[in-house]
């Protein structure tokens, strides 16, 4: 049986993003590549503790929207606010500090292949100079994602599902206020996708804000009973806030 995660494992205050303040806000944002506009006039607010699915066809701009949410891209027009601060005015160091509050599960995981899985998961703590007091928590986190035996292996040696779980563990190790996941179940089978979503729901119950980009509507429907999620649909450059109904 999969162990549940002890909230104390996650460093910091698991309800830090609470108190009603919008954690991430996109206000009339537009973005495009080259001369093509991907979307414009797009607005979105992520309240603390909320759970959102972002759906839409391939190429609609889901990944781009997520990248705007963790300041990996800068909006062409409009404002992106991270924890109330205009992302366009943040220095590079301030962006780094904001990213410590946003855990990201990338579609391609973005691991450093020369490090072990345990070192990759601990990387956010390492770069924050907080690794020394987190060894026990790392072990428990590895256990939570059932990767204890694989801790010493390199990322290329792991299966797709194991890599996705490791990416999720890395995303939450800093106890971020927000977890953003880009197609976290894209490369795994049905059972594994259910497991990953269960982990994300568990995090949401701890107070984390969750934003998941996926094109898998069946997977969303399967989670309907377990989480109070809003579904956002990105299509034709417009963001349709579809509500909880699927």
């Amino acid at each position, binding site marked *: 049986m999969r162990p549940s995660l002890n909230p104390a494992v996650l460093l910091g205050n698991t309800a830090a993003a609470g108190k009603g303040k919008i954690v991430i806000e996109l206000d009339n944002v537009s973005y495009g590549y080259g001369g093509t506009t991907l979307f414009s006039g797009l607005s979105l607010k992520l309240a603390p503790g909320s759970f959102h699915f972002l759906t839409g066809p391939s190429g609609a701009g889901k990944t781009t929207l997520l990248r705007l949410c963790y300041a*990996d891209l800068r909006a062409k027009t409009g404002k992106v606010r991270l924890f109330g601060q205009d992302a366009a005015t943040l220095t*590079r160091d301030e962006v780094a500090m904001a*990213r410590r509050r946003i855990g990201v599960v990338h579609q391609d995981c973005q691991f450093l292949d020369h490090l072990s899985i345990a070192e990759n998961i601990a990387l956010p703590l390492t*770069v924050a100079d907080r*690794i020394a007091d987190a060894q026990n928590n790392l072990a428990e986190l590895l256990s939570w994602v059932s990767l204890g035996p694989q801790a010493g292996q390199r990322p290329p040696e792991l299966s797709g599902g194991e890599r996705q779980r490791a990416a999720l563990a890395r995303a939450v190790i*800093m106890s971020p206020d927000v977890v953003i996941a880009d197609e976290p179940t894209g490369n795994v089978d049905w059972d594994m996708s259910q497991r990953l979503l269960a982990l994300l729901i568990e995090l949401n119950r701890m107070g984390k804000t969750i934003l998941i980009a996926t094109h898998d509507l069946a997977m969303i429907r399967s989670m309907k009973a377990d989480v109070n999620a809003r579904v956002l649909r990105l299509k034709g450059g417009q963001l349709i806030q579809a509500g909880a109904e699927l």
Partner: protein
Amino acid sequence: MKNLLALIMGDPLADRAVPPTGISARLTVFVAAAMAFLAVFALALSLTAGRLASGWADDLAQSATLRLPADLDQTNEALRAAVNVLQTTTGVASARVLEADEQRALLAPWFGPDIPVESLPVPQLIEILPDEDGYDAEGLRARLQAEVPGAVLDDHGAWREPLLAAAQRLRLVGWSVLALIGAVMAAMITLAAHASLAANAQVIRVLRLVGARDAYIARAFVRRFTLRAGLGAILGAVLALVALQGLPQADVAGGTGVHFGFVGLDWIWPLAIPPLSGIVAFAATRAAAFRRLKEQT
């Protein structure tokens, strides 16, 4: 000091975040070693040339020559008069008439060892050694003009001034060469750092995505290049010092006894090359890293 210690000791986990880059690592060590080797030789040449020129200038400043023309009538009387003037001049410690053998030795390079000095119209020379306070050259010339007409006092001023100027220029050239070596080393390390940063663009991207600040990312590269440059400079400096010891030392300056290499406090300079190389590498890599990280935003 705390930061220096942190730079040297490093953080093993942080160091592992950036993978080692073989070719740039080896190039950095090689460049630092080569530059340190050249720097030690430039220093040795500069310091030795400076000592040599200074030695010559000092030797010349410590003596003067009085020349009595060969055709001067009544040379013996003129000689006695000249010696008398010199012995009664304040500041002259001694005045010694050069023997025929000494005059022959002086002329030997041009006329051979068997030159019959006695039968040739060779000027008579008197070596003058001043005391610590020295003598008034102009006053002495005036007295000699009055009492030994035709005698010429040569205090080697015509030689000493150019030698001193040459010594100063040699030192300047030495420092310029060292500055050039430092600049070349900085340029090479900057190129190697840029190559390493470019090769690790994906690593930098991942580090940034997980919240690494520029200073953290730069530190990994700066520490690596600083230590490599320091290590290379130690190797280069040691090799250069070994090579210096292997050079022939005897009579290198034409019998002046000047030692080619480092003497006394001069040893501070070659010992300072490795830490100076580290400082150059630190500054060059840090500047390159922050510039690159800014571009890669």
